């Protein structure tokens, strides 16, 4: 079940320009515990990729490895074709990153920190900073250490967006935000992606957030990438089959595209299938007595990661 499902978008015909963000066979261990087990993932230009996984699945580690913040034990990560571990200034200027729990420079005031960081980015949008600070009611003279976690996260979001990045990487950006803040952030991400073509990678375990803005989705489970697909296509390509006992008894092999299989509470089996882009539904769907239902993304996530 844990094998990577080959459901990615169709392969490009021409050799494309370097992807904003790519990982190939990333492996990372901490104290003999494998956190990433050979993850390969490419974030195509202009896409909004939602990286979803349970707590401890390795989302943050994957993001850090892809950005070159940690050194993987094996595999490579590139940012616009450059090795992430040796990223140059040009790539860094085009990149915005919001960590999960921002805690850097807590001894500075909000305005002081943003002014300092702004000096490093040629396309820094000071007007955006001022307007957003005012809109989110964040005083410039407040110490970062005195802000609540949600406010710290908002400041980090402003810091990342003000540089007008072409690649935006957000690690659980909504985890400390209230519903209003979350909605605003998602709207901002969607508008950046839509208007400026910003490529976005964001991790979350809140499926509704992902459904709201993501164009693509990747499922990470226990350090393995189980699935990487376009979101709309994914919704159309999955089914949960309720197989009655009589039919289930005749099943010898895995059903093509089978993701999970477990006993149905009322007898028989419950099998979740995910067909490939152009593959037909398995024959089992046509068998009399077998009922099929399309799963919402959240249920599919649970089935995949169960």
């Amino acid at each position, binding site marked *: 079940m844990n094998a990577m499902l080959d459901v990615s978008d169709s392969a490009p015909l021409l050799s494309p320009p370097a992807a904003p963000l790519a990982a190939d066979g990333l492996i990372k261990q901490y104290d003999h515990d494998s956190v990433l087990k050979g993850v390969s993932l490419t974030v195509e230009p202009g896409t909004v990729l939602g990286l979803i996984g349970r707590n401890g699945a390795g989302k943050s580690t994957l993001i850090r490895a892809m950005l070159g913040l940690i*050194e993987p034990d094996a595999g490579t990560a590139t940012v616009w074709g450059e*090795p992430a*571990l*040796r990223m140059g*200034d040009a790539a860094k200027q085009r990149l915005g*990153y919001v960590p999960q729990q921002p805690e850097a420079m*807590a001894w*500075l005031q909000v305005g002081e920190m943003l002014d300092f960081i702004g000096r490093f*980015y040629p396309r820094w949008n000071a007007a955006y900073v001022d307007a957003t600070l005012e809109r989110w009611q964040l005083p410039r003279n407040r110490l970062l*250490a005195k802000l609540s976690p949600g406010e710290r996260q908002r400041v980090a979001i402003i810091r990342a967006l003000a540089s007008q990045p072409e690649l935006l990487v957000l690690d659980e950006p909504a985890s400390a935000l209230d519903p209003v803040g979350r909605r605003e952030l998602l709207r901002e991400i969607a508008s950046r992606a839509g208007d400026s073509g910003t490529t976005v990678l964001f991790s979350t375990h809140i499926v509704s957030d992902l459904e709201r803005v993501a164009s693509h989705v990747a499922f990470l489970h226990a350090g393995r990438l189980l699935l990487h697909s376009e979101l709309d296509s994914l919704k159309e390509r999955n089914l949960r089959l309720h197989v009655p006992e009589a039919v289930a008894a005749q099943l010898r092999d895995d059903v093509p595209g089978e993701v999970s299989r477990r006993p149905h509470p009322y007898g028989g089996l419950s099998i979740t299938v995910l067909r490939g882009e152009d593959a037909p539904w398995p024959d089992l769907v046509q068998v009399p007595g077998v009922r099929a239902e399309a799963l919402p993304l959240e249920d599919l996530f649970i089935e995949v990661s169960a």
Partner: protein
Amino acid sequence: MNAVAVSAPARGLFGDTGAALAACTLRRHRWLVGIVYCVLLGLGALLGAFGPTGSESRADGLGFFVLVANFSIWAGWFARLLLLQSAASGLRAPGAATAVRWALLWAALVTLVVPATVLLSVGVPPSVAWGAPVLGVLGGLLFSVMPPPAAIALLVLPGLAQMFSSHLPPMQPWHLVAAAAVGVMVLAACIRTLLRAQDPGAIPAWRRPLMLQAPAGMVVWTDPKSAAVPDAPAIHDGWMVAMPRPDHAGPHAPRAAIDMLLAGPMGYLGRRATWKQWGFLILAVAVLMVIPFRGDTPLIRNALLIGVVVGLLASGWTLALRLERQRRRLSGELSELALLPGLGTPAQAGVRMRHSVMRRLGQLMLFALAGLLLLAWMRGLEWSQVALLLGMLAGTGAASLLMCATAVSGGTVASLRMFLLMLPLLIAATGTLIIAMIRIPLDGQGLAWTVVWTILTAAYGAAALVPWRRSRDRAHAFLLD
């Protein structure tokens, strides 16, 4: 909150009580404090076994070791139960609060009754046998829950009392009772403040308990693997602490930007902050020069010398440990530095980072040199003894370089391996300190000490080259663990 930064403990042999004792600090810290406690009691036992029987000094010596042992274990470990109690109250967890109370009671019984019984059985008078452990417990608790200036005053109080003993009236029993009563009242007030605080970490710096002063509590000094919390909540309102401002840092001054972001001992300070720090330093030196310590107060002079030597040994360690802890702060300043444009190529940024470390280390050693020379002059040491102290400074500098190089190369500073590596330095420094304190003439030993410090300096310097080269081979200087 930095009160209880530990994982959920398993219920062990002592059930909830044991769990509370385990939960209030980390295993490594418990071991360290426990070892110190056992060593002190062991020294006391040696004195009891081999000291002259029946003498008053033997009883006082035994009492002293028990007092210091109790002080250390209560200050280092059991006082942290109060933080757990505060957290339990805040979380409305009456079961946990009860367990903490039982743990406090158990700890008090063990550290009072057992030593007192042993002392009584070897013929120590009851007043000492009971008084010493009680004083140790109360002193340890008081030291932990008082703000740093008051805690330090508590430590120097015995020395001051001895210093001014000729000017003070003879000590009467009621003096002791009154002093103990004041101590208990202060202790009660401090504990009350701690338990009533919603977040003990948010208590204003001037009255924050000593055990919460270090980032994440003193526990992190024995365990850099524990999540390092930002410095700011603990020190932003500390009026004596100057934190770096970014006024003059930027892409035009990348090294200042690196220093600014690394902060702490690495911190790049503005002119005002620098003047403030120098002002305090000059004031401290002036106080030392003016007050009449030079001629007739060996206790204070020795304390100053010990303080400077311990500070010298600790400064490099502190810097290295801080660099190591930065690597474990996943969303801290290092990740900011790693993605910030304008700091140069990875190789250039690495060189700047290493230069920053070297510069800070050099500054720390210069301060130590100034302190040692000042004290040598105040004590009127011979040139040979001054040369010995300078040898110690060189050896410590090389050892500090080794620790800092280990930290920037991704290695572990707080490890048994590093402790064993530093053991020769600690032994040689202790010997040097004793010679300087007692002013032992170096007649025939000068050459031997020169060889010792030359070898140690060369060995640590050579050993530092290995991690230093490894740090240059890293993909970039700001890698997280």
